[in-house]
């Protein structure tokens, strides 16, 4: 047998596959049933029986078989029932009209009925799909991890499309990874292809990506705020049409998964911020407890020493000196504790600046007053330009900066030399400098002195605690400025810091009716 012949036979077989054979059988059966009745039944009613058979075939077997049944019925009707019987010849020409009408009616009925059946079938399929999609949505809504999201999506696609599923999600550095729960490994090509989809947001198709003989569709998972990942659905090459036919379904699955992943992301964000708030609260309560617990004995120490120093009759001079030293040391300890607590607060990074527009001279004056004996008799000479604008800063923190810098300047200042404070405009910043007449900072340590726990020289004769300058830097930087130390050519040492000028608020000029009476 030659090849074309074999092909035509196989086509024949396919055409004559089960539904068609059944259609032929239905027509034959009708003819068989009608034959015993042919003397009693009118020809028109016999034709009706054939039409009924065509309808049944159309309902059960679809359009193709019913068309076959229609032609076959007309042929059988002619052959067995229309005189002359057992012949295709016709006595009366009007039977030709019967045949034609019968054929047309059969065809129309078969068309309508099979269409109806198809629609019913499609509706059923759609309903099934909707139900499984609903099941998927339910599973995704209950998913508590990315692994569960993947599992729900994968099992849906496996059942409905016999497809393999891979999921790639971005990490904190925006690099795409498979979630931990995923067993199948990704390849570099796959990651590259996914990257493109992730960046562009467009669907793409790739062959042999997940496995040989497989065709993959890469779907971006678009969340409401950003891209959430890439879904790779792979099927065997032979059924690759399925990916195109079911694209709408796949898009739905992708968006459902994107929503689920986004929801997980926000849950995580919420949990993190809750955790942060809790740890913040803990830190604050520890700090305030510490500050209270340390200050109470300090207050007692300071107060008792002060009481002794003021007691009448006065203590003998050596005892008085001791008592005054105790008092001073208590005060110094208190400053250290304050600095440390402030530093802890600043380093926690959640200090809310209470910035207000105010004149610089006020906070300098308050700092000098607060330091009092801490200046060890050094006078502070303040020289500010008359037109210095208001600056925006947190007065309490800035007071701490000035206290630390002035105290430092006093500590490293010999004798009773003055401490100089001056300020000048420097572009968009105000440059504030505090200088003393000391030996200057070690030139190689000008930067390190602002680091935590660093003093000028290892064996400094002057007591101190490096946290003072570190807190100054933290506060100044929190205000958007910078701080530096330098030794001017004229001798001494200076610390200078910058504060932004900003735009001070307008002040309405006061109407002044002239000198008061």
């Amino acid at each position, binding site marked *: 047998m030659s090849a074309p012949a074999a092909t035509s036979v196989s086509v024949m077989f396919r055409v004559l596959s089960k539904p068609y054979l059944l259609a032929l059988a239905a027509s034959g059966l009708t003819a068989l049933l009608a034959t015993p009745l042919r003397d009693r039944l009118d020809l028109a009613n016999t034709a009706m029986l054939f039409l009924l058979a065509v309808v049944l075939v159309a309902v059960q077997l679809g359009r193709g078989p019913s068309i076959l049944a229609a032609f076959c019925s007309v042929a059988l009707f002619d052959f067995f029932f229309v005189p002359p019987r057992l012949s295709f010849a016709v006595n009366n020409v009007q039977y030709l009209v019967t045949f034609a009408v019968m054929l047309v009616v059969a065809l129309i009925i078969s068309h309508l009925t099979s269409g109806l059946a198809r629609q019913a079938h499609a509706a059923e399929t759609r309903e099934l799909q909707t139900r499984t999609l609903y099941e998927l949505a339910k599973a995704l809504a209950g998913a508590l991890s990315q692994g569960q999201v993947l599992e729900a999506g994968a099992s849906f696609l496996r059942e409905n499309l016999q497809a393999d599923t891979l999921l790639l999600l971005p990490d904190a550095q925006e690099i795409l990874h498979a979630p931990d729960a995923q067993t199948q490994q990704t390849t570099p090509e796959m990651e590259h292809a996914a990257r493109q989809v992730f960046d562009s947001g467009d669907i793409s198709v790739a062959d042999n990506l997940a496995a040989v003989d497989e065709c993959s569709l890469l779907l971006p998972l678009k969340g409401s705020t950003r891209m959430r990942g890439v879904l790779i659905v792979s099927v065997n090459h032979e059924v690759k049409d399925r990916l195109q036919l079911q694209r709408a379904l796949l898009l739905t699955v992708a968006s459902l998964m994107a929503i689920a992943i986004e929801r997980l992301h926000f849950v995580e964000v919420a949990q993190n911020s809750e955790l942060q708030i809790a740890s913040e609260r803990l830190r604050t309560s520890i700090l305030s407890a510490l500050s209270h617990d340390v200050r109470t004995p300090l207050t*007692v120490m300071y107060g008792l020493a*002060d009481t002794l120093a*003021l007691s009448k009759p006065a203590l003998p001079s050596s005892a008085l000196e001791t008592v005054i030293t105790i008092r001073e040391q208590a*005060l110094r300890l208190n400053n250290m504790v304050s600095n440390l607590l402030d530093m802890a607060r600043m380093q926690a990074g959640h200090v809310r600046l209470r910035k*207000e*527009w105010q004149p610089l001279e006020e906070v300098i004056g308050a700092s000098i*007053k607060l330091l009092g004996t801490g200046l060890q008799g050094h006078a502070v000479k303040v020289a500010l330009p008359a037109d210095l604008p208001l600056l925006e800063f947190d007065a309490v923190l800035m007071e701490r900066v000035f206290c630390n810098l002035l105290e430092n300047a006093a500590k490293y200042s010999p004798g009773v030399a003055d401490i100089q404070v001056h300020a000048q405009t420097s572009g968009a910043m105000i440059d504030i400098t505090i200088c003393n007449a000391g030996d200057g900072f070690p030139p190689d340590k000008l930067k390190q002195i602002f680091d935590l726990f660093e003093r000028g020289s290892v064996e400094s004769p002057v007591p101190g605690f490096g946290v003072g300058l570190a807190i100054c830097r933290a506060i100044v930087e929190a205000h958007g400025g910078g701080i530096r130390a330098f030794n001017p050519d004229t001798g001494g040492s200076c610390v200078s810091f910058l504060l932004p000028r900003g735009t001070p608020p307008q002040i309405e000029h006061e109407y002044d009716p002239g000198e008061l009476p």
Partner: protein
Amino acid sequence: MSIPGPLVLVVEDEMQIRRFVRAALEGEGCRVAEAETMAQGLLDAGTRKPDLIILDLGLPDGDGVRFVHELRSWANLPVLVLSARSTESDKIGVLDAGADDYLTKPFAVGELLARVRALLRRGKTGSEAGSPLIHFGEVEVDLSRRQVLRLGKPVHLTPIEYRLLVAMLANSGKVMTQRHLLREVWGPSFVESNHYLRIYVGHLRQKLEQDPTQPRHLLTETGVGYRFQI
């Protein structure tokens, strides 16, 4: 001594602090009553009728603002608050509620006594009209003639500057919060305009202080407000 000294109620939970505060006050001729909790303090304030209350803000049972509110509902005696640093908002709260002054821990005994004296003096003269003449530093203010002299020469103040000066003089020895001063001098709609207050205090210092950058009478209470000190 026939006249007993003024009675000071110390509301403080730390025994040692009470001890030296009591010693210092008694050295000044005051009688001292002690309370360990705010509840006890309120009770004692009612029964013992002290002339002054020293209140620690860090009491375990305590909300200082409520204490002062309750106290102010039936008594007008001066309240001096003791508090730790870096709790400016607490201080402002309790001062706005009606406390008169505060001291930051740790505090010098001399400073405490100076504040106590100032408050007790206020308590005495508060009811009767004080003298219309007030002297401080090089300055003399005649409230009846609305005249300000410095070294004997008249100083020109704008109406707001004068109102501000009078408000500060009237509360001499007390801490006035920025809010309080703004409301008193500028009116209730200005209570958020802190920079106005700061600028005008600066003007007053320029006109009345020897060294405006290191004032001795118009003092800044950083983060809280101002204090006038003779």
